[in-house]
């Protein structure tokens, strides 16, 4: 199969407008004859469901949470980028496009990224019109800040909870359509399979998480908006429920998986406090604007710190290694996320980590407090300091914070074309669950932008084209394909419930996480990755022998819910490792030890790896087949990143 | 349903009735207190009895008094309706609750406090108000020297059912003013000689203090009145005037008669 990205012809800046014109339209009177299924109600899902319902389509929306407003988009802190150039500081659609392509280390499609930058300006207008309370200046106009090391101030924000405010905007638009009867909302429902009729996605099988009922839902198209799969690492900044099940089951039904190994690891999280740790909490990256990252110079000293014999404050200036400032004099503590994370890992791999686990580095505000005064530091970071104090019981005004890198975002996801359609006709993937716009590394404040761009401004056009092509012929969940898919799901459920071994599902998940973190985390090498494949395969086999899943299907069954998610994580984990093994280059958030410069920095290999790795499912326990979509750069010149 | 009746059948509207009647009753307390201060006057009850007559016979005040009775009834009836509905909103309670961690005691016990007050009002009104209107009250005749206001002669006139009516005239020959009035003052002073009556009054006034400590400011909130500039004033009045000073003076009346008269 040849991957057709369907990128329109013509100059970059005109591609999207031209494409929109060329897309077929659905007759207004016919729109109500179509039903669209939307899985997930985060930024992408809620905005898509609302926008499509506004156009006149019938929408069935699903989420596993108890309310659509709880989707994990809600937890985004920093902000949302838009090329408004309100600050007169030289921003433009082209600059946002360029920064995103470069930030993604030249592993994203030019056309997609340009479109993203182009519609970014509309997102802000849309959100403001919905009543999203963005930060404002005294003059009453919107405030902006520079974020994630960007040279221009293009980030719009709502204190530390931009994600929640944007999601509430999309959720309110969704609520309006629910009220008008155009959207039927299914809370506490998990999608467990997609249904294909004549090769086209035409419905889904879901499980009602309260009653256990396995339901069939038919629609003319299925939109997956289910977010990232960072929980494959067990510990991540994702919500406990964030999972890969929907996209993984779609992958098994024929949707190619793009760049599964692209994971973003965020440097400023609160460290793990013990085996009981269930998730990691992110602190805004802005902390690195004033905090200085360091570890003790010697292992002996670090050892003493770990044992509690030595306090951070008692370590003399000359005994501290401000490794980011030392290695990257021009960027210092503000190097990109991947560089900061990797160097922290190097430090604690070297035995110089601090904290009781030894898996943390210091982020020190002593200098900032001396320079700006405690009051100014408090005004800037007060809420973050409070949060840190709440969790760790340590006062960051008095002793340096301890930070730890954590999996935060997955750039990989289902492969989609320019229309956001997967390799299964009628099946679309929006937001974090697709692979499309961030290449090998995502810029700060771009995730919210992408989710909303896909949902509000891309899918309403591109989906119309598909629907007009297939025509408004009714779809029916009585088709034998539904019964077949339902039977498959029921079999999986029964197989899981029959497991009565000794280990809990969580234990498997934790083990998987350890393997992934160890071998497929910030730095990877061939030997480790090869070993990981074996380990994961063993884990999978062991799961089906020794796992313990309690209860019955016809109840609110936490144990079964988790089991479904974990079996998919295990299989996805293996694919991620395969993808990482295949990509023998360092790029973006992905450092391949065999591919580094003499100074030990990441070395990209554009000649061999300037492609999207799209993996095709070939059957249970059979390795996926790799397809390559070569990336063509007509507008930007590929350069090596340097932060020295 | 009209917009009005819809408004009053909503939870907000029902509470609006509570708030309006409650604040009206609070306002009444001020008037009632000022009037009752006459009890402390050492004139054999002349001023108090004149005041009682005025309050029951001046038309505008009569109209207001009907409003007052209606308010008491509405306040009590709606309290019952709301409490029932609120109980229905949580049929299964908590095994452990720590209300003191998040709210004042009075705010959580308005119902109990209100019930005490309702019992009090029933006793109070049947004893004084009903007696005054329909009871067999004695009369008192006051003869006051026009040249010396402190020189008052009091003559008690027992109830005779026929001849006594309220009257007031000036005897130019004697140079006195004569007032014949129903002697509510006597009833009051006799009632307040009974210890259980004093206890009921004092306890009820304490209950009223707590009821108004929450109720006064809450009434304003229920109306939607909440302003950062004026809220402190309302809270201040609610605490000092309505939950301390007014109940204290009211409570002082039975104590005054019990101990000092």
């Amino acid at each position, binding site marked *: 199969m040849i991957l057709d990205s369907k990128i329109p012809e013509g100059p970059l800046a005109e591609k999207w407008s031209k494409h929109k014109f060329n897309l077929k339209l659905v007759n207004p009177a016919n729109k109500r004859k179509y039903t669209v299924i939307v899985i997930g109600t985060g930024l992408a899902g809620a905005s898509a469901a609302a*926008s499509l319902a*506004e156009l006149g389509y019938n929408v069935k929306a699903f989420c596993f*949470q*108890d*309310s*659509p*407003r*709880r989707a994990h988009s*809600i937890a985004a802190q920093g902000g949302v980028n838009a090329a408004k150039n309100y600050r007169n500081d030289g921003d433009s659609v082209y600059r946002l496009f360029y920064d995103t392509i470069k930030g993604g280390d030249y592993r994203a499609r030019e056309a997609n990224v340009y479109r993203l930058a182009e519609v970014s300006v509309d997102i802000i207008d849309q959100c*403001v*019109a*919905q009543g999203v309370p963005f930060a*404002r200046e005294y*003059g*009453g106009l919107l405030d902006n800040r520079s974020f994630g090391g960007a040279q221009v101030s293009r980030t719009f924000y709502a204190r530390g*909870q931009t*994600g929640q*405010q944007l999601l509430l905007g999309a959720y309110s638009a969704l*609520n*309006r359509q629910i*009220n008008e009867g155009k959207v039927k909302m299914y*809370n506490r429902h998990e999608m467990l399979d997609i249904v294909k009729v004549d090769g086209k996605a035409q419905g889904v099988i879901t499980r009602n998480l309260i009653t256990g009922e396995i339901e069939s839902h038919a629609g003319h198209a299925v939109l997956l908006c289910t977010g990232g799969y960072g929980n494959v690492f067990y510990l991540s*900044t994702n*919500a*406990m429920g964030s999972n890969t099940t929907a996209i993984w089951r779609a992958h098994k039904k024929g949707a190619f998986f793009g760049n599964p190994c692209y994971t973003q690891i965020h440097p400023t999280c609160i460290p793990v*406090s013990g085996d*009981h740790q*269930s*998730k990691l909490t992110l602190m805004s990256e802005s902390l690195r604007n004033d905090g200085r990252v360091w570890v003790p110079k010697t292992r002996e000293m670090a050892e003493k710190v770990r044992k509690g014999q030595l306090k951070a404050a008692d370590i003399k200036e000359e005994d501290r290694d401000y490794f980011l400032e030392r290695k990257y004099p021009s960027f210092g503590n503000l190097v990109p996320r991947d560089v900061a994370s990797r160097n922290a890992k190097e430090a604690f791999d070297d035995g110089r980590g601090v904290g009781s686990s030894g898996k943390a580095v210091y982020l020190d505000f002593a200098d900032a407090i001396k320079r700006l005064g405690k009051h100014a530091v408090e005004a800037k970071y007060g809420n973050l300091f409070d949060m840190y104090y*709440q*969790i*760790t*019981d340590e006062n960051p005004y008095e002793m340096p914070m301890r930070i730890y890198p954590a999996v935060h975002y997955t750039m990989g996801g289902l492969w989609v074309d320019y229309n956001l359609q997967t390799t299964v006709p009628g099946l679309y993937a929006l937001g974090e669950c697709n692979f499309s716009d961030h290449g090998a590394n995502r810029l700060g404040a771009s995730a919210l932008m992408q989710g909303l761009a896909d949902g*509000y401004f891309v899918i309403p056009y591109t989906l119309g084209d598909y629907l007009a092509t297939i025509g408004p012929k009714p779809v029916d969940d009585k088709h034998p394909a539904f019964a077949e898919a339902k039977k498959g799901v029921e079999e999986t459920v029964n197989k899981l419930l029959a497991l009565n071994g000794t280990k809990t599902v*969580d234990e498997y998940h934790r083990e998987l996480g350890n393997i992934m973190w160890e071998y497929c985390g910030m730095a990877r090498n061939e030997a480790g990755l090869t070993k990981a494949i074996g380990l994961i395969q063993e884990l999978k086999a062991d799961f089906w022998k020794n796992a*313990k899943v*309690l209860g019955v299907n016809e*109840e609110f069954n*936490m*144990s079964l819910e988790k089991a479904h998610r974990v079996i998919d994580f295990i299989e996805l984990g293996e694919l991620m490792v395969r993808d990482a093994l295949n990509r023998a280059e360092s790029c973006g958030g992905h450092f391949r030890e065999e591919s580094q410069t003499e100074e030990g920095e990441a070395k990209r290999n554009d000649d061999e790896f300037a492609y999207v790795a799209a993996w095709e499912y070939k059957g249970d326990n059979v390795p996926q087949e790799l397809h390559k979509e070569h990336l063509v750069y007509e507008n930007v010149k590929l350069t090596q990143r340097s932060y020295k | 349903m009209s*917009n009005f009746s819809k408004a009053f059948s909503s*939870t*907000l509207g029902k*509470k609006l009735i509570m708030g309006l009647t409650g604040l009206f009753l609070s306002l009444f307390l001020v008037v009632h207190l000022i009037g009752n201060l006459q009890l402390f006057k050492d004139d054999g009850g002349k001023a108090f009895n004149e005041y009682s007559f005025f309050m029951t016979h001046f038309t505008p005040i009569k109209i207001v008094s009907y409003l007052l009775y209606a308010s008491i009834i509405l306040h009590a009836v709606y309290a019952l309706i*709301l409490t029932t509905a*609120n109980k*229905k*909103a*949580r*049929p299964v309670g*908590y095994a*452990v609750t*720590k209300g003191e961690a*998040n*709210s*004042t005691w009075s*705010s959580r016990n308005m119902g109990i406090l209100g019930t005490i007050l309702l019992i009090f009002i029933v006793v109070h009104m049947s004893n004084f108000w009903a007696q005054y209107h329909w009871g067999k009250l004695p009369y008192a005749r006051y003869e006051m020297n026009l040249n010396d206001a402190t020189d008052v002669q009091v003559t008690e006139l027992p109830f005779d059912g026929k001849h006594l009516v309220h009257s007031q005239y000036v005897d130019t020959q004697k140079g006195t003013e004569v007032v014949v009035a129903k002697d509510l003052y006597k009833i009051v002073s006799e009632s307040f000689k009974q210890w259980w009556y004093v206890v009921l009054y004092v306890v009820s006034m304490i209950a009223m203090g707590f009821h108004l400590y929450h109720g006064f400011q809450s009434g304003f*909130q*229920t*109306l939607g009145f909440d302003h950062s500039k004026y809220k402190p004033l309302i809270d201040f009045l609610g605490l000092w005037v309505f939950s301390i000073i007014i109940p204290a003076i009211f409570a002082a009346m039975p104590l005054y008669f019990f101990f000092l008269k």
Partner: protein
Amino acid sequence: MNLTLKVWRQKNANDKGGFVTYKADSISQDMSFLEMLDVVNEGLTKKGEDPIHFDHDCREGICGMCSLYINGRPHGPKRAITTCQLHMRSFKDGETITIEPWRATAFPVIKDLAVDRSAFDRIQQAGGYVSVNTGGIPDANEIPIPKTIADEAFNSATCIQCGACVAACKNASASLFVSAKISQLALLPQGQPERYRRVQAMVAQMDAEGFGSCTNTGACEIECPKEISLTNINRMRRDYFNAKFFKEEEID
């Protein structure tokens, strides 16, 4: 630390339910309250007993999914945090902790400690939005909004819809939640065209869901993990009375 837990267990909405006592031994002070429950659940699962169901998701205090009435207070003994942000160092060794679900007619128990809060969704569906379609919107900076107004609207908008206000209120009133949602849009210019329709529709739905009435005890404000202020409730009342008594708009 070693603890005794008295946990409400209830198989489903129709089950009567009751308290079951569990021992939680060797609990670390650094665990969050939910991690402590994870540990207990892991033990129960190993023994083949049904784990304790409770709602949770983001575990960083923003999704609003976690609940729990802990020792007589929603989200436990500390202020301005959710249960997932509560740490075991807030408890004493040997303590007995009583854990109950949110209690309200409008929040029926689904299982154990998990309740159905879809009433909150329905209230917002009744009118908690600005009716604008996607696209065709004027530039964001065409509507200047005074910073104080924007900040105040933001304060109302921080509500995470967890339901602690209902759980804390002795009347199970949802006024704080509903009023925060109404306030946010009533304060902003974008919300003006539908301001009086919205307040009527949302209050009507709130009443229809069977929440109690607000008696201004202020418990909700104290227990709200986002410290939403009572002022919102008074704003809601003003708008509601204004709509009902002085405006032409009538909703059915």
